[in-house]
């Protein structure tokens, strides 16, 4: 896939074999993938790396999916989360994390469908992020900083937004 943007994905699921194959396929499609096997690991990974989309299993030992996505969004507010739910747990999921998640998908997910949803989530992330970025850049210009100050402020912003 040539015209595909480089989407950075964070996978979080305690089913390691599943992630192994899922990562391989997504990598092959040209996406950047980081696989983590618990909420705690995911949050650790999100400290040093920026992601566009996280795919999070709802039911995990330790920190569950809802908690994980909340914490992830604290460090990376534009990150879009796709939450995988087993059947029947979708209600609890909807109650506890309605605003947070980009979409809930039933396990086992259909791979093609997952890819489509990832792409949609990425698009949404870029839209929000760009709007916000533009707003803040305008803010900086308006603030009347000198050229040097502006450059520094923008580079700080870039860092925050994970834009290279």
């Amino acid at each position, binding site marked *: 896939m040539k015209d595909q943007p480089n989407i950075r994905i964070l996978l979080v699921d305690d*089913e390691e*074999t*599943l992630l192994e*194959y*899922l990562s*391989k*396929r997504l990598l*092959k499609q040209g996406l950047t993938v980081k696989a983590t096997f618990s909420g705690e690991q995911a949050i650790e990974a999100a400290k040093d790396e920026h992601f566009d989309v996280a795919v999070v299993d709802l039911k995990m030992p330790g920190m569950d999916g809802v908690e994980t996505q909340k914490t992830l969004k604290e460090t990376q507010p534009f990150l879009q989360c796709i939450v995988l739910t*087993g*059947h*029947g747990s979708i*209600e609890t999921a909807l109650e506890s994390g309605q605003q947070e998640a980009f979409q809930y998908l*039933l*396990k*086992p*997910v*259909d*791979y093609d469908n997952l890819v489509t949803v990832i792409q949609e989530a990425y698009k949404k992330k870029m839209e929000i992020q760009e709007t916000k970025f533009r707003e803040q850049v305008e803010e900086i210009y308006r603030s009347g900083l000198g050229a040097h100050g502006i450059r520094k402020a923008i580079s700080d912003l870039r860092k925050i937004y994970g834009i290279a």
Partner: protein
Amino acid sequence: MESHSSLQAELKRVKQELASHKIELHQTRGYLQCILQNSEDMIFATDVDGMLVSFSMGGGKALGYSWEDVAGMRVNDLAEDPVSFEQFMTTSSQDGSTVQLDLAFRHKEGGTVYCDVSMINLTNREGQRVGTVGVCRDITLWKKIQEDLVRIDRLAEIGRIAAGVAHEINNPLAVIGEASGWAGVVVGEAKGLSPEDRQELEKAAKEISHQTKRCRNITHQLLDFARDSAPAKTEFDVHDLLKQSISLLKPDLKHTPIEIDLKFMPEPLRISSDPRLLEQVFVNFITNAIYAVREKGKGRIEIRTAKTDSDVEITFKDNGIGIPAENQQKIFELFYSTKPPGKGTGLGLPICRNIVKKLGGIISFDSKPGVGTSFTVRIPVS
């Protein structure tokens, strides 16, 4: 002279007494007749040999026989097990009366009729036994309800177990699906494979993926069915939900000459109900309609909405293959499907029915083989 008049008086008195006895007898007979005609119970009388001499209307209703049918029959011939019935009658005649629960009679048309029976000796003025009277209460329906309850209980238990199993199977299923997907990718690019081998392996990997999806559909549907959460009400527009359901089925509609014709009311149809449950219902009806139309080659599906003061009505009408008359009463049965393995689970309509019931609505349908089918869901506005 005096004795004559006293005789006259005596005769008059006897006559009067007789007349009043006659009236009493008449009344008693009327009373008896009334009981025999109107009691729901089966009441019979036999002579000393067990030959039927009277058989009530209730008996006729319960066993399907008229008096003409049974006149001259022995009562134990009506029982499913005449021998043990005979024994029971003998005990009863010795003890004066007996009660037996749950005795089986045979219906004229076949089938078993269960009764609780009490028998009483019929005696004459000298206290000699001249026959037997039996009062039998038909408990067949009651027994059936009890059996149904037990079965429903067992079904519910099976449902819970099945849901648990389906849930557990989902995880390995997901792994199989991903692994086979990956295998397909690798085989597609592997070097050193002969074209035939590559083709074979690709085909095999695809087949595994395909069958995994099939399993997933089953587990999802089963879990849908078993899920028993209370409906979560929100307000939404039925038209939006219908459009959303259709778009979910886009992949199914691709490459098929099926026309979907939306005959919606002009104004939005806002109701307060559970949209996620209702979406399942819509998707199931549309999926079935697509299949029915495709079986025929091509056709159209009409989705129509209407509203009364308290209800909304959504009709899914297709001009597909239709449902043969003899199948029409079975389509809501669990696991009933006429589709080839892999195409049907027989869970769709039972799920629809459960959900619609939960939402306080009803489903009706109408189908002509070869012409088409329409399913109508009617649910309350709130």
